[in-house]
C-alpha cells in the first residue's frame, strides 16, 4: 500500500504564495505587456515601439543608459576590486571605519548623492564659486554623462568591494603561497591568480551594478540635464508634465525589461563558464606593505571612500547652515530642521516607518516561507515560485510601479494612491534579494535537525517554527536590517505610486530638491542618513562575521 501524499499546510502556503504572485506580479506584467501593444484606436498595434525606435530623442536614451551602465560597471569593478585587494591582503589602518563608511555610501539614496554633487560642483555650487573666486578658473561642468557616472559609481563601487572581499576571504592562503613559491611576482600574482579566482564573484557583482545603474533614475533626472537616460524617459512619459501617455510608457517599460533580461542572460551564460567552489581553511594573511606602497594604498583607500562619502558630509553640513528664503547665509542654525520636522512629522516620517515596517515584516516572512519551499519542498509548483520570485530582480523599479498602477488603477481591486500599493511594490522589489539570502542560510541547516524535532513529536509546521526559524534568526535579522535600509531609501517605484497621503522621506527630499528648498531638503536628507547609519550600526552588532550580502 502506498503512503498517501499528505496534503499539508505547506501545500496551502505554496498555493497562497503562487496566488499572490499571480495577482501582484504576473497580472500587472501581463497588463503592462498588453497595454504596450494597444494603439490609439484601441486595437493591436506596434506603433509605440515604432515611435520609440524611429525617433532619435527616444532611442538614443537607450544607448545613453547603456553607456552609463557599462561605464559605471567598469569603473566600479576597477575601483572596488582594487580597494578590496588592498583591504584584504594588506594591513590598512582604520579597517572598520573604512568599511562602515563604504557601506554608508552604498546605502545612501541616489537622490541625495546627485543633489549634493550639484550643490558642491554645479553651476552655482559652493566649490564651483569658491574655486572661481580664488583662481579665476571655471570648473568643468558636472552635469551630463560624467556627473551621472560619478554619482552612481560613488554609490555602487562599495558593492563590488563587498562582493570581492567575500571572494578574497574564501581564497586559501596556500594558493597565494604556492604562486609565490613558483616564482610569481606580486603584480603577476594579482593578475594570474587572485583576479581569476575572484572572476565569478566579479561577474555577479557586475550584474548587480549594471542593473542598479541601468534602473537608477533619480541621478540622471537631477544631474543629467540634456543627457537623457532610459528610466527618465519612462518616468517622463508616465508622470511628466507634457505628453503623458500610459500606453507609450508601457511600451518603453517592456523594452526596458527586454534589455535587462538580455543582460541577465548574457551574465548567466558568462558566469556558467567559470564556476568553481572555494573554501578557505587558512584565510589569506594580511601583510604589512612597504612604506611607500603602504602610503599609496592608504591614500587610495581613504581618497576613494572620502570622495564617495563627501556628498553626505556636505549635505549634513549644509543642513545646519543658516538660510533665508532658500539663500544660504553666514553662520549656523537649526532652522532647516525646525522647518523640515514641521513638514515631515505629519506624513513623511510616520509613512516611512509604517510603510517600511509593514513591507519589512512581510518581506521577511514571505522570504522565509519561500526559501523553505524552495530548499525543502522541491517540486514543480515551488519551482515556479522560485522562478517567479527572481523576475523582479531584472525589472527596473519605475517599471514595477507603472505595472502596478496599470493593474490596480481600476477594476475589482483599486489600490493606487494607498499605502498598500507602496508596500506591495517594496515587497516585490526586495523579495528576490531576501529570498536568496534566506535560501543560503537554510541550505546551511541540515534537514536532520527538523527530522529530529518531528521524531520527537513536533508537527512539520511546529518543527519549522520551533527549530528551523530560531536557527535562521541571526542571518534573517542581519538580512532584515539591510532590507530595511533599502526600503526606506527607495525612490524609483515610490515616485510613480505615491499620493499626498503616502509621501515618504525620500519623496519629501526629492520634492524639496525640485522646489529648491535646499535647507529643508538637506535637513530631511540628513535625518534619513542618520536613520540609515543607526540601522547599519545595529546590523554590525547583529551580524557576527560582518559579512554582508545585499
Amino acid at each position, binding site marked *: *500500500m502506498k503512503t498517501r501524499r499528505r496534503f499539508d499546510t505547506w501545500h496551502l502556503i505554496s498555493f497562497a504564495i503562487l496566488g499572490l504572485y499571480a495577482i501582484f506580479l504576473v497580472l500587472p506584467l501581463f497588463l503592462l505587456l498588453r497595454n504596450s501593444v494597444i494603439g490609439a484606436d484601441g486595437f493591436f498595434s506596434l506603433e509605440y515601439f515604432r515611435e520609440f525606435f524611429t525617433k532619435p530623442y527616444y532611442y538614443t536614451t537607450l544607448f545613453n543608459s547603456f553607456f552609463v551602465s557599462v561605464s559605471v560597471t567598469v569603473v566600479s569593478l576597477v575601483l572596488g576590486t582594487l580597494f578590496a585587494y588592498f583591504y584584504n591582503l594588506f594591513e590598512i589602518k582604520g579597517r572598520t571605519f573604512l568599511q562602515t563608511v563604504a557601506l554608508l555610501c552604498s546605502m545612501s539614496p541616489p537622490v541625495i548623492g546627485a543633489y549634493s554633487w550639484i550643490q558642491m560642483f554645479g553651476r552655482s555650487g559652493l566649490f564651483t564659486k569658491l574655486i572661481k573666486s580664488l583662481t579665476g578658473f571655471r570648473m568643468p561642468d558636472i552635469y551630463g554623462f560624467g556627473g551621472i557616472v560619478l554619482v552612481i559609481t560613488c554609490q555602487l563601487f562599495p558593492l563590488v568591494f563587498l562582493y570581492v572581499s567575500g571572494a578574497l576571504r574564501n581564497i586559501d592562503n596556500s594558493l597565494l603561497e604556492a604562486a609565490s613559491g613558483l616564482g610569481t611576482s606580486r603584480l603577476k600574482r594579482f593578475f594570474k591568480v587572485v583576479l581569476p579566482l575572484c572572476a565569478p564573484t566579479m561577474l555577479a557583482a557586475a550584474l548587480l551594478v549594471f542593473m542598479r545603474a541601468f534602473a537608477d533614475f533619480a541621478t540622471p533626472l537631477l544631474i543629467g540635464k540634456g543627457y537623457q537616460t532610459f528610466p527618465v524617459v519612462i518616468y517622463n512619459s508616465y508622470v511628466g508634465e507634457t505628453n503623458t501617455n500610459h500606453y507609450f510608457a508601457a511600451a518603453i517599460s517592456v523594452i526596458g525589461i527586454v534589455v535587462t533580461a538580455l543582460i541577465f542572460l548574457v551574465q548567466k551564460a558568462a558566469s556558467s563558464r567559470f564556476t568553481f567552489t572555494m573554501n578557505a581553511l587558512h584565510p589569506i594573511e594580511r601583510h604589512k606593505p612597504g612604506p611607500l606602497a603602504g602610503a599609496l594604498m592608504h591614500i587610495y583607500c581613504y581618497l576613494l571612500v572620502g570622495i564617495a562619502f563627501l556628498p553626505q558630509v556636505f549635505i549634513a553640513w549644509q543642513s545646519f547652515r543658516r538660510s533665508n528664503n532658500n539663500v544660504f547665509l553666514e553662520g549656523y542654525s537649526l532652522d532647516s530642521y525646525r522647518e523640515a520636522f514641521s513638514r515631515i512629522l505629519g506624513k513623511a516620517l510616520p509613512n516611512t516607518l509604517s510603510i517600511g515596517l509593514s513591507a519589512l515584516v512581510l518581506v521577511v516572512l514571505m522570504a522565509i516561507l519561500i526559501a523553505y519551499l524552495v530548499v525543502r519542498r522541491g517540486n514543480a509548483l515551488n519551482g515556479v515560485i522560485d522562478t517567479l520570485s527572481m523576475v523582479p530582480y531584472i525589472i527596473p523599479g519605475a517599471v514595477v510601479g507603472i505595472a502596478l498602477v496599470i493593474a490596480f488603477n481600476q477594476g475589482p481591486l483599486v489600490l493606487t494612491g494607498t499605502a498598500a500599493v507602496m508596500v506591495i511594490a517594496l515587497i516585490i522589489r526586495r523579495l528576490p534579494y531576501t529570498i536568496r539570502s534566506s535560501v543560503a542560510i537554510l541550505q546551511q541547516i541540515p534537514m*536532520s535537525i527538523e527530522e529530529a524535532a518531528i521524531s520527537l513529536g513536533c508537527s512539520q509546521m511546529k518543527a519549522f517554527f520551533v527549530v528551523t526559524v530560531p536557527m535562521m534568526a541571526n542571518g534573517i535579522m542581519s538580512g532584515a536590517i539591510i532590507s530595511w535600509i533599502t526600503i526606506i531609501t527607495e525612490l524609483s517605484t515610490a515616485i510613480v505610486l505615491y499620493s499626498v497621503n503616502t509621501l515618504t522621506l525620500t519623496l519629501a527630499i526629492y520634492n524639496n530638491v525640485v522646489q529648491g528648498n535646499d535647507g529643508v531638503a538637506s535637513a530631511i536628507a540628513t535625518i534619513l542618513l542618520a536613520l540609515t547609519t543607526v540601522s547599519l550600526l545595529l546590523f554590525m552588532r547583529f551580524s557576527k562575521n560582518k559579512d554582508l550580502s545585499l
Partner: protein
Amino acid sequence: MSVNITIDHARKCYDDNVIISDLSLKIREGEFFTLLGPSGCGKTTLLRMIAGFNSIEGGDFYFNDTCINDIAPNRRHIGMVFQNYAIFPHLSVKNNVMFGLKNQDTRLKKAEMIQKAERFMRLMHIEEYADRKPEALSGGQQQRVALARALVIEPDVLLMDEPLSNLDAKLRVEMRETIREIQRSVGITTVYVTHDQEEAMAVSDRIAVMNLGQIQQVGTPQAIYQRPANLFVASFIGRTNILKGRIRLRGGEPLLDISGETALPVGATLRPDAAREQSVVVSVRPEEFYITQGVGIPATVNSRTFLGLNMQYFLTLDTGEQVQVIQEAELDAFLEEGARVNLGVKLGKINVFSEDGAQSLMTGVVNDAL
C-alpha cells in the same frame, strides 16, 4: 512499550529509479537489529521509511499489528539518532533532552519532565553539561545528548542512522559499548544502520546484510561471518580470499580442488545436493589458511606486514591468484620475500559457493531472510 516490526513487500523508488524493489523483514521485539551494507544499498532509505521521513511506494510497515504507513512521523512514537547528531544548537543540553517531552499528548508536569530528563542525562553521563549550549560539547558528548533525547520519550522503537561515523576511532569503540549497554538495560527494539561490519558485529543481536536494495542474509553476527549465505556476504563481512575451485567426486566423496589438484575432502560440510562435479568459488579467510612445509597449495611470499598481534603475508599462488594470510606473530620467525611455502586450509571453516556466487553450498547456513 517495545514492539516488533514487520516489513511486508516494501518498495521505494524515486520516479524511475528503484532503490528497493521488494523487501520483507521481521524485526523482533526488544532486539538490536542492524542494517548493514555498502553505501547506496538502501539501508538508510529503509530506516527512513520506518521513521516516516521517506514515502512508501509499495508494501506495508507494521509496528506489532498496527500498519504505520499512513501515520505521520511525529505520531509513530519513535526515537531517532542521526549521523550528524542533529542537536538543536539554540537550546541547552537539558532543553534538548526535554524537547520531546514537551510535545507529548499527555503533558507531564514540569517537575516530572525535569526529573525524567535528569535520569537519562545521568544514564548518558552528561548531567554536568545540562545547562551548556551544545556547541561547547565534543562530538561524543553531542551524540550522548542525542541518545538521551531520543530515549527520554520512551519510544516504541529506537532508530539509529550511522550514529558513530562522525566520531574518531577510539570514541567509536567506546560509544558503541555504551549504546549496546543502554539498549540492553532499556530493552527497546532498536534498528541500527551502519556500513561498518565490525561495528555491526559488536553491537547487534541480528544483522541484515543488504546490497542493491535487497536483503542478502539475516542472522546473528556469528552466523553471517562463519556461514555467509552468498559470496557478497562472505566478502563484505570481514576479509576473505576468493579463489576459483572445482568439486569432483571420487568414490562418491566430494573433493575440492583449489589451485590445482589439492583434493580437499569437503564432504563433512558440503550440502549433499551439491556433491556433484561443478565449478565453484571458494572463500578462505586469511586466518583460515596456515603456512606449512607439508602438503598444501604451493605459493610464493610477496611481502609481509607486521600488525603487532599478527603477521600478515601477501602471497601469489602458482595459478597467479593473490592471497592474504594471517598468522600469529612469532618472535624472530617470519618468512622472507620470495620464500616458497605451501598453504594448508582449515577445512571446517572455509565456505564454498556456486560458481556465480549466488548461494552457499554449505550445510549450517542460517538465513532468517523472508
